[in-house]
């Protein structure tokens, strides 16, 4: 895997790391005890998670009526959260699959956590289509399960059904991809493990990885094949999620720009979430050597690009709606009617968080600053949540018949479930950070010789030496 890399490129691994150092660095969080901070954050997350479980139990026990929905706005926070979490889950595959195909070595520092985030986010996302059902106990009816009732079958025209397949495919492919990458790393932990229990667990998790050349060959092949499989999924999942809206007849939903716009938006929010997580993680887990300013900058660049795709979509939505001259388009989520209506604050929250604040990333100083990028990423997370909220709630609140116009207010249950999923997400992520190799150490090791700091310094030294010698010989 080693390859030649121009010395003028910044090193991807800082510090004078040897292979053993890498192993030590990655295994440290697993092999050492959790500190106080971890316990505090974990406890908070766990409480939030339990609260969410309580809220879900209350919903299922009593009825969807405990949410703030009504007969005009039949979806609100539930599907907002669903799309938001699915969107967040997009960065993982993009980083691991697309960047793998494009041979972007910088992905190696971040892909493990990005994929973990993807899977945990998809868990959260998958929860909402389930619990938003009025009769969750019949939820399996959305699967095409053969039954004795003859023609009783699912409706393949329904985008909700497409969602079922899209999300489950995405989750399974992502999971397999993630686990494949994890195998050599689990094996490394297994080999280092001193406690028999740990050794047992990790040997199970590593599927008996032996590190033979054949293993590596298969590993590389499978990675490539899965990357090829996963790449279209990056496009398809959010395209299909966007069909939930785009195939409808509701003003503001019925829009052909939705699929590319949603995909870009998903990547946008996914990268923002990766930034949010990794900026903290590199500090907490002492991964400064592997997640560098360059990583942050690269991700900021992706964010900036997708930001502009999304912004272009916003502008075109706004323009086309206005240009249509249709009264029905006057009040959609991106319209003057929305800006002057009761949801003006949500309208501006979307534009400011997603359109304006990310523009700061044009400045190199800002996009190379950990603290600035962290703040901007947080805003994008908020902005992307508002995007989905606006699409769902503003559009539904301003339907075709003005007599049916109304508003939505979340109840404590709506809020509780959302916070619960955030809690659940962090519970999973924190457990992951303590038990999984959070950086793909096997892959990192493969570029240590080409992109490592010491290697770069050595080559520099070498070339300087050569230069000196040449100059000396000239003399």
């Amino acid at each position, binding site marked *: 895997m080693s390859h030649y890399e121009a010395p003028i490129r910044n090193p991807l691994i800082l510090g004078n790391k040897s292979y053993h150092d890498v192993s030590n660095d990655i295994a440290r969080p697993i092999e050492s005890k959790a500190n106080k901070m971890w316990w505090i954050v974990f406890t908070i997350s766990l409480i939030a998670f339990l609260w969410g479980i309580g809220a879900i139990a209350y919903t299922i026990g009593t009825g969807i009526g405990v949410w703030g929905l009504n007969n005009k706005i039949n979806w609100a926070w539930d599907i907002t959260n669903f799309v938001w979490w699915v969107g967040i889950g997009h960065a993982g595959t993009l980083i691991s699959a697309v960047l793998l195909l494009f041979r972007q070595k910088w992905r190696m520092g971040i892909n493990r956590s990005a994929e973990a985030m993807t899977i945990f986010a998809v868990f959260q996302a998958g929860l909402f289509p389930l619990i938003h059902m*009025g*009769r969750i106990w*019949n939820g399996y009816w959305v699967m095409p399960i053969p039954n004795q009732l003859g023609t009783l079958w*699912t*409706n393949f025209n329904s985008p*909700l059904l497409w969602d079922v397949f899209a999300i489950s495919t995405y989750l399974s492919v992502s999971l397999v991809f993630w686990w494949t990458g994890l195998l050599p790393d689990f094996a490394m932990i297994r080999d280092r493990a001193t406690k028999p229990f740990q050794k047992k667990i990790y040997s199970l998790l590593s599927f008996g990885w032996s590190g033979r050349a054949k293993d590596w060959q298969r590993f590389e092949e499978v990675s490539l094949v899965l990357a090829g499989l996963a790449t279209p999924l990056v496009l398809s999942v959010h395209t299909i999620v966007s069909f939930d809206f785009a195939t409808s007849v509701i003003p503001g939903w019925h829009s052909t720009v939705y699929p590319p716009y949603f995909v870009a938006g998903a990547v946008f929010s996914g990268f923002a979430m990766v930034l949010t997580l990794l900026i903290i993680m590199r500090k907490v887990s002492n991964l400064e050597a592997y997640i560098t300013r360059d990583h942050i900058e690269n991700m900021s660049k992706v964010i900036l690009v997708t930001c502009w795709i999304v912004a272009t979509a916003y502008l075109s939505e706004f323009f086309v709606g206005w240009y249509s001259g249709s009264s029905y388009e006057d009040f959609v989520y991106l319209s003057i009617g929305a800006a002057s209506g009761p949801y003006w604050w949500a309208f501006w929250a979307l534009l400011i968080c997603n359109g304006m604040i990310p523009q700061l990333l044009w400045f190199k100083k800002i996009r190379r600053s950990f603290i600035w990028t962290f703040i901007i990423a947080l805003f994008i997370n908020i902005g992307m949540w508002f995007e989905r909220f606006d699409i769902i709630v503003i559009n539904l609140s301003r*339907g*075709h018949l003005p007599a049916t116009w109304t508003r939505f207010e979340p109840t404590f249950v709506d809020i509780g479930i959302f916070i619960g999923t955030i809690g659940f997400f962090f519970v999973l992520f924190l457990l992951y950070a303590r038990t999984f190799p959070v950086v793909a150490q096997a892959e990192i090791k493969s570029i240590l010789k080409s992109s490592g700091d010491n290697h770069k310094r050595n080559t520099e030294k070498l070339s300087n030496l050569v230069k000196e010698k040449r100059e000396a010989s000239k003399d």
Partner: protein
Amino acid sequence: MSNNKKYWTSVEELKGNSIVEKLSKQEFPKEIPTDAFLGDKETLASSSTSRRDFLKYVGFTTAAASLAACEGPVIKTIPYVVKPNDIIPGVADYYATSIADGFDFASVLVKVREGRPIKIGPNLEAKTNNQTNARVQASVLSLYDNNRLKKSSKDYATFDKEVKATFDKIKNSDKKIVFLTGTMASPSTDKLLTEFTTQYPNTEHVIYDAVSETAALDAFQEMYGSRVLPNYNFAKANVIVSIGADFLGDWQGGGFESGYAKNKAPKNGKMSKHIQFESNLTLTGANADQRFALKPSKQIFALINLYNKVTGQSLPSRATSQDKAIKNAATQIKSVGSKAVVVTGIQNKNAQLIVLALNNFLQSEALDVVNTKNVRQGDDTKVAQLIADMKAGKVGAIITHQTNPAYTLNDFTNAVKKVPLNIAFSISSTETTKLAKYVNATPHYLESWGDVNMQKGQYNLIQPTINKLFDTRQFQEALLSWTENTSTYYNYLKNSWTSILNGQSWNNVLHNGTFNINQIEAEEITTVNNIDLNAVAFALARNKSNKLELALYTKVGLGDGQQANNPWLQELPDPITRTSWDNYLLISRVDAEKLELKNWIVDNGAMNGSLVDVSVGGKTLKNVPVYIQPGQAVGSVGLAYGYGRIEGMQEEMQTGVNAYLFVNTTGNVNITKVEGEHKFACVQTHHTMMGRDELVNETSLSDFINKPKKEWNKEPKFSIDHQEVSIDQAALWETFDDSIGTKFNLAIDLATCTACASCVIACHAENNVPVVGKQEIRLSRDMHWLRIDRYYTSDMTNKKGKEEGIFGSGKFFNAQELPQDQPEVSFQPVMCMHCNNAPCESVCPVAATSHGRQGQNQMAYNRCVGTRYCANNCPYRVRRFNWFKYSENSAFNFNMNNDLGRMVLNPDVVVRSRGVMEKCSMCIQMTQETILQAKKEGRPVKTDEFSVACVDACSTGAMTFGDVNNPEDKITKIVKDKRTFKLLEFIGTKPNVVYQLKVRNS
């Protein structure tokens, strides 16, 4: 004869010695080792069951036993041991009867299933007075009201013995016995009362209507000699001018809408013109071609001015702000002469005299002084005298029936304390029964016998449709007992009808529910007394105006408040304010701004409003919510009767304030804003069409006559690649041939729909629609399958916006949302459109909503998983989700939460569970029944035989239902009519519900 036949199932069996035989003997391949298990001690002792195994068995059996103990709920169904002759389970019986509760009078047809009345419909055998308004439709639920009086205060023998003893004492004193009743218009009851009077000569019968028409009755008496109400046939009027008469509401007993509607849709280029002058925005005003706001005191002058302008006389009057419109109305009246009619709701005898004189002057064909109405007989003078007598101690006994004076009559509570014997007849516990010494629980009209003479020449019978549910006794039965008459009321009624029937069959009349004496017109020639109109007008002109005047009114929901404990009526959104569960002070925007009163929308979309203390003439109502009503005359406020009852009411139904406090109270209205806010249950908080004029399409009569259809009823265009194509070519879906078999369409004529909301209740009753309560209504979770959207016009039109250069700006949109101060009103009943290309159908992941062969969009409740995607994708927003379990849930303590209330449920329609979507089914249970009936009788379905609940209830004929594949059906013509349009047709949904646009004759 012996039978040698042998039956066999296979050749092997026939041949004998087969494998079958062998197998059948070996049904249990091994003998069950019962002995090994339950053997004797030795076997047990030697058995391998260890202590651990034993514990396992114990554990298992305990678990199994406890599981088995979790028994499902036991629902008892009791089969008929001996089937009653007249009941076939599953087949409905229909009985013709009448409602005559003192406020609503109608000849009705009652649907009875397995002995339970479940639905009220109009009795089509009756030619008149068969309109079922919302309250009549809902009255079936009042039968099953859990708060009804279940027994009288004493057993009837003791009751009567004690009462009669007192009567006898009074007979020999100088005091009198007074019957205070609402209008009963019952010949046999009158006869009974006369007999009572013979026995106790010092008896008086005082009729008291809570919402009184004394002025009209007195005026008619003065002019025509009899104390009855004139009848109006608006079908005969080309110009209708109403000054404060809500004749589409409860004015003079109501029931005028069917006549009115006959001329509201243009026929051969002609239709009636209706001009309304009023202070509150009523249903009548909302339906008028022209409406002018005028506060109550000014209406009097407007009336005299109109009289002067029409007749050319100059009665004393004063100018009003609407004199130009009055002049214009007079011109209109003069142009049609006898084809015009003027009506008024001013509660003043003199004003009513002027109207009668004016109609007499015009020789108005619409005014009918022959077939007069008896539905209001109350006499305020006598009531006032009675109160005075009671206070003076002159009354020895008061018997109240069909009235709740302690709630409606101000001084009654004080006065009745001076009366030694107070007997109240009532169906439920009321303010009046609380004061009474003896309370007689009366049956509901659906459990009673009776008769009613609603209008001259028309006699109706009341017959029970169910056995008495409780230990109740009719008023008439009590009278029979008090007059020592041993006959049952049924026999008494039948005997007393001998004179009415004049040889006709009783059974026939009972079957028809109604009986008409035809020869009256020849018999009766009414003489008109001369009235000194100058003096009348002079007296009228002395009326003082006040800065702020109060106009009391009745809402279509609660009316006079008798059925206030009826959740269907409480939840029925008022067609004008679209607010349920409340009454409120209607006030104009101008006055509200002066007093700093506000209505505002909170974050969950519900409406809140300011609270005020209202005082008139020294009486004060505290904490009255304020509703800012477009169209309200500046300087006037409105308040609805019927609310604010507490006694005998379920807590949830104790809504609003008691407006009866202000009856007959004149003077300036003082309003003081108080702290706090009121939470309204308003289902529509956006009032204008936002420039989407195609929603409720309407046009003017001149455009309708003179211009081609495409100018006033544009069809949407569909295009592919900039080529105009038909809707079918533009559609994504394959169409199937629906020209075979039945295909249902429903048409709603917006020109004749008055928005009376009777269809809403009919739908509620037919389809077991749950009541959800105020809080859920606030959250826009109303469950009505059929709603009536109401729009006001806005000052800010697209044209005006463009002229002002603000078109498309936020300022423009905000201005567009504001209704005009004097708006035109449009109504639009909306239910499921049963789209042929239904957006809901394509998005349901489990295909729970699918298209029926007959055109319906069907909802399979038990397949629904509740994703609510269908509701989101419905442009008409007609789908209703069961957010909670609305039946048998104490959080929704309405009729579906008690055994009695559930008796009203239609057994043909399932009660939906929590978490499923529901919506209008086009009453598929009714259409299927029609088809099955035809099938059973071996005939094709007859022309116009199909019907649905809302269409049945519609008394103006605005709704039509039928099979468009039958060229003879009425609907087939309507669908092709040039006034026909479809709601939001441009989306391409191809609805099976069509509208006919409203034509305004303005």
